[in-house]
């Protein structure tokens, strides 16, 4: 059946609410408003205000309450409207959710899922355009998911809810309106492995989430220029699927990491370091990177476009590492 990414996420939430009475959704405007991005539209009517729980604008409070509810045996899905607002809940995410199991010597599990929108590209200015999933991937104790496809948008949530530890799911805002075919019975998917979205032999384009569509388009353009690109969708930023990354690079001997986050200290730096550490002698070229410009994301359309990874920049970077200057 035809589905949008938004509908796929909603279907995943509905699956979870139907399958487990311990599951509930909580966050700002998830109920009466239907979700800031309309993800939870209709769920309040279907499941009631106890399980589709509107919260005040208290990110630290309701994220912490989600942690406590998880400790108390529930399976909360906490929606933070955007990654930008998650900064107000960093204390709870880092000091409690990520640390409790270890601090307690293995006694207290936090089976919590936090969903949030991430990314730029919609002229929302600096404070609504962050891509901080790479930041969160720095934290031991968290699992970081970045669904890019309809199957993952729907299926990652259930697997995340079965995980005994805190899982953060980042949904790129530009993906919600992407539509495609999704099996009506699409179910849980694994949250451990990366996936090859386009096989190829000349260069590995490594990306995730919101930049996957641009990378796939870039791969098509590269094909026209005689470069056979492999597209690897990381799917999970922590833990990284090292085996899949290294297998792809061992095959193509060249790689470009495409990440909407900033270059300095970002997940692209981590990926580049791992490839260099583990596949240095397999490489025929330095690891390339296409990231966002190191500026707070500007409002003006042309300036924002210039700041973000684009098909053109991805193609150019791939041509550079493959020695195909076009």
């Amino acid at each position, binding site marked *: 059946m035809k589905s949008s990414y938004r509908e796929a996420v909603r279907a995943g939430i509905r699956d979870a609410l139907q399958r487990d009475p311990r599951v*509930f959704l909580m966050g700002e405007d998830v109920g009466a408003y239907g979700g800031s991005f309309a993800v939870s539209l209709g769920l309040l009517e279907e499941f009631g205000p*106890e399980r589709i729980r509107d*919260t*005040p604008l*208290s990110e*630290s*409070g*309701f*994220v*912490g*309450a*989600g*942690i*406590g*509810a*998880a*400790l*108390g*045996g*529930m399976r*909360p899905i906490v929606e933070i409207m955007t990654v930008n607002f998650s900064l107000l809940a960093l*204390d*709870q995410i880092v*000091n*409690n959710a990520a640390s*409790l*199991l*270890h*601090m*307690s*010597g*293995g*006694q*207290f*599990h936090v*089976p919590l899922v936090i969903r949030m929108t991430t990314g730029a590209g919609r002229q929302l200015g600096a404070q609504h355009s962050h891509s901080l999933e790479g930041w969160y991937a720095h934290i*031991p*104790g968290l*699992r970081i998911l970045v669904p890019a496809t309809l199957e993952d948008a729907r299926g990652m949530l259930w697997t995340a809810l*079965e*995980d*005994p*530890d805190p899982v953060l799911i980042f949904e790129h805002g530009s993906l919600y309106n992407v539509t495609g075919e999704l099996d009506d019975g699409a179910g849980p998917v694994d949250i451990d492995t990366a996936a090859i979205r386009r096989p190829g032999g000349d260069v590995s384009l490594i990306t995730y989430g919101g930049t996957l569509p641009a990378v796939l388009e870039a791969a098509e353009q590269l094909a026209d220029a005689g470069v056979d690109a492999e597209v690897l969708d990381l799917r999970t930023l922590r833990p990284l699927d090292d085996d899949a990354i290294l297998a792809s690079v061992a095959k193509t001997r060249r790689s470009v990491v495409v990440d909407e986050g900033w270059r300095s200290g970002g997940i692209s730096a981590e990926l580049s370091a791992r490839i260099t550490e583990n596949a240095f002698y397999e490489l025929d070229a330095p690891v390339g990177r296409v990231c966002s410009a190191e500026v707070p994301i500007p409002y003006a359309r042309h300036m924002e476009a210039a700041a973000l990874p684009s098909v053109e920049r991805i193609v150019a970077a791939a041509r550079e590492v493959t020695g195909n200057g076009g």
Partner: protein
Amino acid sequence: MTGPLSPSLRPRDPGHGRHLLLQMLRVRRLEERCVELYSAAKIRGFLHVYIGEEAVAAGVLESLSADDTVVATYREHGHALLRGVPAGAILAEMYGRVEGCCRGRGGSMHLFDAATNFYGGNAIVAGGLPLAVGLALADKMSGRPHVTVCFFGEGAVAEGEFHESLNLAALWDLPILFCCENNLYAMGTALVRSESQTDLALKAASYEVSAWAVDGMDVLAVEQAARTAVDAVRSGAGPHFLEFRTYRFRAHSMFDPERYREKAEVVAWQARDPITLLRSSMEENGQLTADDWTQLQSEAESEVAAAVKFAESGTLEPVEDLTRFVYSERRAP
């Protein structure tokens, strides 16, 4: 806050009084020994002792049942002990031994114990409040008749998480008792220097939370107030807030030169030592003999001696286990 115990309060029988006295003594003796052990470099990291404030934990925890939930702060040795965590496991934790209640991964500020529903042990001021709200929410959504008690200092009142948590608890009518241990100083910053409104019960009441202040040096007053509040919370009357007016006799931590308060102020509060107050009152009322007192002291000291022995003989977790407990080793049920 000066003077003796509230004249209207008496232990309901000598046994009750002696029990409360013993509970406070157990905490006092354990922490006095902790300070010695810190000076002897047996304990490292930060160490925050509760000496002077024991009546609060003793009185409040007396009012709970085994299924209830406790969330505390980084000054939580006494809460852990009185909740039922063995003194040996607490001390072994501070020694960094695998026999500690958190295998030595937590230390003094992060005591946790699943067996007694003791959820720490939080070193971020006010960080435990949202957690407690969630634990109470889980109880309410699951229809369990439990009460969550959340301890925090008056310094937490300045944090946003305090306000967010009281609002959420009241909005959702949760079974939670907020216990504010007002010892007048957030580290070295006096309440009057950090809050425009120093009536903390009034602040809590502004969230439609039933709130009142209690003499935190009077363990009988603490227990009576806590029982009243816990019973109300358990019966569905929604969140309650108690401000316990108390005082920390010792420094904030082992690194605190106490430049921010006068010695005379400390001495004045020491005259209202909660242990001395109850002891004197019971002696005056013929509820405590000299032999009783000797017996209680000896009991507390024996427990501490055994705990030290337990911690001293503890073992170190193998370094190969370093990366355990970052992620779960089993799937959730």
